[in-house]
């Protein structure tokens, strides 16, 4: 029996569903996202995909559903709940004196993702609207110190009164409990949770209670509070959306539970208790797809780059290890939620192009035309030129093939606007000005990539992968002449993130803060003793993970555990992640091995000049982590017979003038759908598909391998 995998990427505007069969054949359906009930957009998109696959959803839907191996949701439902402030009314019970913790935020939260010119311009400061206003917060007198010692016992009457007021006076529908240093000792939070349940029984009203020690047990109370509040505020609303989708799928015979994607990669059942960890799963699919792709092409180091209409997202997989950000920004809040380390800048095909009125300097973005990335030439009412206008004017985009030819464009409008607003004030020819603006964008993207990788990594060891609807369009522009090991893209670049969603393993991470320090004056045996808490913390986290995965039906022998520490030199604020080279710390040799591994990584990242004199060096381990993984069945990347290097004549669409390096050239135009593994194409060329365009400048050459992956090299390499 054929088996299928379905994954979706529900964006703010469109929901993409990709259906992949076991042989790796895939089709993509698209439908508008339906925020009120996401199952509508999901099923419409699935039906379109099935039609492409030759399956009649009305007649054959049920038999298809029964053959579904996995169905995965990635998307923005929880994000939208926060954006739209449509979550449940949430109350906060917190350490007395910190009732403003959510309303006050932190100064640095007012400029998450902002450009430096925006950060320095004082007038731009703005806090987000708090999810928990002060009125819905109650204080509890209690304090636990950094070692976990209760210094001020919890005043239980405060808890009773606070919970009662939140339930009865404020009519809250969820309660978050966040006490300082609860990540070291959860005693007060656990007891407060018990009292809350007692009070709920007394008043006859039960609401979800989220404890920060269970949701995000790591240091930094502002971020831990934000994470716990998001969980209380948004996860149940989002879960209801996911249950609706699951119900629809089960209605067509899908026999399993719906899965969703955690922000740090990996899938989980939608009943997973800490669902907020899936809040930022949108960009994860791309990295996970890249991770899977890396195993197929045999490359451990991949730079992932995703170009959309609005933003350029990048992340690097090093030695097969996914980058993790433990305190990412989320909707102008920092959250203690491990997330794949993906950094973004406002640069995409819809990015606005302007000239500064004071200096006549070219200004790209950071704002963009968003979901309508060609607003001038599709005459959507906007009159500010965008990057896509430049692409169209230069002949890179085909005016007859915009969105597969579905949308008519008016190139003259682009020309007139570009001339008036950009070229004439710069005293440049329109086409030269357009090429100049594209190059500035490429540099912005290139710099972003290089800077995200720069610390301690050699670009010559990395393969650059471009995806996203506009990834192939700009890939070779931002690849530039940096010495990448290779440059690759895929024909399904536009739906790569959704495809990546189908390629994930079950993977959970658990973090726990610890406070250990070893100083140079300690004997080797004392150092072992000082690091002993790591062993206990690892074991405790592994027990939790075995239990969680066990409840999902996995056996112990299916689960692989990786032990990780976060280390720094005494005094530093930032630590670095180190995969422990030893399973436990039981001997001086184990300590030395751990320190050696840390120092190797540290000096790689920050150079030798940053290393202290060993005679004075003290080390702190601030956090431990365990990564648990269970392999799952995934779609195969289909292997094809290689055809000849010369593409079939049907694939050739002719020539089109393209403006490059200051003059017009005739570019070869190819139809991507008709290119097959084994074919090779020389630049200058444009390879067009209905949902993406690969632009190949003159100095590049494209080879399609047996997995239908496009390898691009410099002709002079």
């Amino acid at each position, binding site marked *: 029996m054929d088996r299928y995998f379905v994954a979706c990427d529900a964006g703010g505007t469109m929901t993409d569903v990709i259906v992949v069969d076991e042989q790796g054949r895939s089709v993509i359906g698209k439908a508008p996202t339906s925020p009120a009930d996401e199952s509508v957009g999901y099923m419409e998109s699935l039906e379109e995909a099935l039609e492409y696959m030759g399956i009649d959803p009305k007649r054959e839907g049920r038999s298809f559903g029964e053959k579904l191996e996995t169905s995965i949701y990635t998307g923005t439902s929880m994000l939208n709940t926060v954006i739209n402030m449509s979550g449940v009314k949430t109350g906060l019970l917190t350490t007395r004196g910190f009732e403003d913790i959510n309303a006050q935020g932190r100064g640095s939260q007012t400029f998450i993702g902002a450009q430096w010119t925006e950060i*320095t311009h004082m007038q731009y400061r703005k806090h987000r609207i708090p999810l928990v206003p002060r009125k819905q917060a109650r204080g509890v007198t209690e304090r636990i110190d950094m070692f976990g010692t209760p210094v001020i*016992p919890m005043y239980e009457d405060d808890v009773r009164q606070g919970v009662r007021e939140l339930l009865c006076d404020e009519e809250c529908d969820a309660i978050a409990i966040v006490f300082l240093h609860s990540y070291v000792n959860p005693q007060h939070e656990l007891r407060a949770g018990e009292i809350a349940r007692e009070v709920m029984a007394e008043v006859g009203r039960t609401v979800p209670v989220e404890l920060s020690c269970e949701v995000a047990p790591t240091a930094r109370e502002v971020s831990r509070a934000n994470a716990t509040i998001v969980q209380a505020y948004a996860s149940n609303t989002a879960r209801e959306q996911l249950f609706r989708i699951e119900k629809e799928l089960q209605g067509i015979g899908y026999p399993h539970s719906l899965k969703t994607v955690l922000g740090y990669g990996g899938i989980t059942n939608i009943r997973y208790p800490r669902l907020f960890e899936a809040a930022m799963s949108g960009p994860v699919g791309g990295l996970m797809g890249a991770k899977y792709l890396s195993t197929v092409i045999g490359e451990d180091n991949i730079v992932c780059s995703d170009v959309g209409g609005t933003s350029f997202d990048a992340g690097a997989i090093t030695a097969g290890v996914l980058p993790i950000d433990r305190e990412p920004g989320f909707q102008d809040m920092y959250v203690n939620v491990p997330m794949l380390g993906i950094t973004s800048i406002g640069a995409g095909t819809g990015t606005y192009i302007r000239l500064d009125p004071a200096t006549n300097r070219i200004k790209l973005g950071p704002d963009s035309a968003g979901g309508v990335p060609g607003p001038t030439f599709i005459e959507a009412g906007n009159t500010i030129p965008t990057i896509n206008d430049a692409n169209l004017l230069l002949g890179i985009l085909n005016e007859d093939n915009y969105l597969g030819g579905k949308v008519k464009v008016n190139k003259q409008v682009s020309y007139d606007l570009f001339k008036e607003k950009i070229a004439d004030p710069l005293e440049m020819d329109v086409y030269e000005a357009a090429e100049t603006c594209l*190059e500035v964008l490429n540099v912005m993207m290139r710099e972003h990539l290089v800077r995200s990788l720069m610390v301690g990594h050699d670009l010559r060891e990395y393969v650059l992968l471009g995806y996203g609807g506009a990834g192939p369009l700009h890939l070779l522009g931002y690849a530039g002449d940096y010495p990448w090991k290779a440059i690759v893209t895929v024909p399904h670049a536009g739906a790569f993130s959704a495809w990546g969603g189908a390629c994930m393993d079950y993977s959970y991470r658990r973090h726990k803060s610890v406070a250990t320090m070893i100083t140079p004056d300690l004997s080797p045996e004392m150092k072992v003793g000082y690091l002993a808490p790591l062993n206990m913390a690892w074991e405790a986290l592994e027990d939790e993970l075995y239990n969680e995965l066990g409840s999902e039906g996995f056996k112990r022998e299916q689960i692989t555990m990786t032990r990780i520490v976060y280390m720094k030199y005494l005094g530093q604020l930032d630590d670095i992640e180190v995969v422990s080279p030893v399973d436990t710390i039981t001997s001086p040799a184990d300590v030395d091995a751990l320190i050696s591994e840390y120092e190797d990584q540290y000096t790689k*990242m920050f150079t030798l000049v940053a290393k*202290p004199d060993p005679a004075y060096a003290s080390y702190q381990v601030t956090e431990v982590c365990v990564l648990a993984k269970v392999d799952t069945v995934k779609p195969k990347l289909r292997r094809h017979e290689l055809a000849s290097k010369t593409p079939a004549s049907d694939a050739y669409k002719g020539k089109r003038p393209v403006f490059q390096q200051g003059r017009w050239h005739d570019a070869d135009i190819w139809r991507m759908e008709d290119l097959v593994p084994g074919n090779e194409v020389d630049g200058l060329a444009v390879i067009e598909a209905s949902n993406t365009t690969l632009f190949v400048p003159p100095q590049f050459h494209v080879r399609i391998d047996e997995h239908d992956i496009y390898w691009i090299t410099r002709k002079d390499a």
Partner: protein
Amino acid sequence: MAEPTLLEQLRSNEKAFEETGNLFGLQSLPRKEKDPGTYEAVWHILSNVCNLAWEVGCKVSSSPIAVEGGDALWALHLPTGEAICVSRGITAHPGLLAAMIRNFIELGYEEYPGFNQGDIFENNDPHYGGIHSPDFDMAMPIFYEDKLVAWASCVSHVSDSGSVTPGSVGFLNPDCFSDGICISMEKVGENDAFYPWYEKRVRSRTRTPDFVMGDARGRLAGCVALRERVHAVIDKYGLDFFVDATKEYVEDSRRYAVSRVRTQCVPGRIRKSQFKDLAMKGQHVILNKQDVDCLFNLPMEVEIDADAGVRFSLRGASGTVPFGENISPTALKSGLLNGYSHIIGFDMFNSGPEASWEVETAPAGSWANPFEVDYTASSGVAWAPAVMWMSNLYEVFGRLFQMRGFVEEMAAGAATTMTAEFAGVTQLGYYLAGLTLEQASNGSPARGFTDGENSAWCIYTPNADFGNAEVTELYYPIMYLGRNIEPDSGGYGRFRGGLGHTAVWMVYGTPSGIEYQCGCAGMRSKIVSNHGMYGAYPTWPDAPSYAHDTNVQELIEAQKPLIHERGPATKPTIETNIEAADLQANPSAPFLTRELLQNYDIIVHPISGAQAMGDPLERDPESVVEDLNKGWTSPRVASEIHGVQTTMNGEYVVDSVATKQRRSEIREERKARAVPFKEWWDAERQKVAAKENMADAVCAMWRSSMQLSPEYGAELRSFWDLPDDFEF
């Protein structure tokens, strides 16, 4: 022809600027005009290079104040010192770093000891342009093919400067000899490594050498990273382009600043008066000469000519003080560039805007130009008066923007800044001295169209942030009992300033006690602070308090109420809830505790909100009620200051009719109090002439201002119609 020396290049640049009005004589910007794309691309790359240095350096550094509080910065400079672009971080320093490099050239270091790749130069000495001893400024030359083509620089604020009092905010320093470790324009290393003596000096002259050396390594790692990336940029774009374009970036930025002034301000002369006190009489001081109250005159006069030329004057600045609150003209100028970047020149932040204005150096012997007259003056916390002077800039330009209708650019004055610093053996068993991050996040000033933001701005760094309490507790033996928003801390006006917050700490975990220094980094002791503009009312001065030898442990055991907030000014919570052998409910700040604080002692440390704008009677009643319901203002303030009357319906609701009535009554009361200006002037003149009700500090301030700036004195006498020989 031999390459001109850097000193010759400096002189040539000066001449070209004088002759053309354009930096480097650049009457056009050929690289930009010919190739705007590459020009923009390289700017973007160089900015990223600086930020890369920041990321590397901060991760290596050891000061939370540098990393989480943003008190560090890396920059790229022209060979002659002008900053080309800077990283994020403490924007008060690029001017200083530029001046330091220039100073190395002026002092002949090119000849001896010479400039070579891998050399490390540092300065923290205010006599040579440094700001104060904890701010270590570093510069490393960048060579390309044996030619010095640029400099990498960095500043970071270390946890302890080795001054007479522990920590880094030496407001109590009586003279420069007590300012601590001194690096006076020195070459401190070569081949990307510090000389062995450097670490030895840090270890013998600071109390926290591991932390200070960690910061040194951070500065170095960032500068090396910056240099290597600059090499890559030159490899790609060519040396000629780099040399030309980097100069154009500086001149372009000057033009941007001029253009902003031309299009958004009006020509003319505007003056802003501002005062700061430092009430130390009867307090714990180091030397007898410090048993005195001081008052600073911080006048700012701005003159804008028809060509948008801007001239700043500090004429009238009062004399030096026997505390660490004197600043060199170089450092003050850098502070001015910082303030300018917040409101005028934020687009391409570098040395360019400095060339768009002139500063009339403060009179010799004043707090803003001490060393010519008083070479021993201390600059332990030179920022203290300087940031308050910088705050004038917001208000002055706020008025100018308003005159041209750019309401959205208007800002009231900044918040005052009070630091908290601890020193002693921590709960981890080692000695530590240093700042908390509290002061790095004040409220932001009221804007011309809305309130300021709470806990979101810091005048000395746009990276304003107070970090996490749990992180602070990892460093110091204190436990937070509170960190909430402080009601009514943003003044009263149509738009209020962003609110500040109050940290309440309980000392805990120290085996031997800790020192607490409530430091002055720009605050007032007794006089009105944060006065507001356009008819706004001020809030009360920063009011810290502490209790030593307390009953807190007993309160905890009995589960009695503790203290989590400052409480009403007239009845602070520390008085109502805490008993102590030594309870200072309203001590005059700044101060250093006389005795070591012990476990269960209490500190209440407020962080100021910013200034308000406009008449409080014009505040939207709904905004007043919104603040009431959030607990951000009190019913008394709502009723008496804003005239807003309310009813209760589970929460406060505006009573529109009663509000209208009450506001009308308040206006009538104002009219009843009002007198014609001439009448007021006559009465005040009599008081001035008789020096009536003037404290010694007031007279001393006016006396020194008039003596140091005779022109200012003459103007003052003329205004009050006083005899020519009148003196205070």
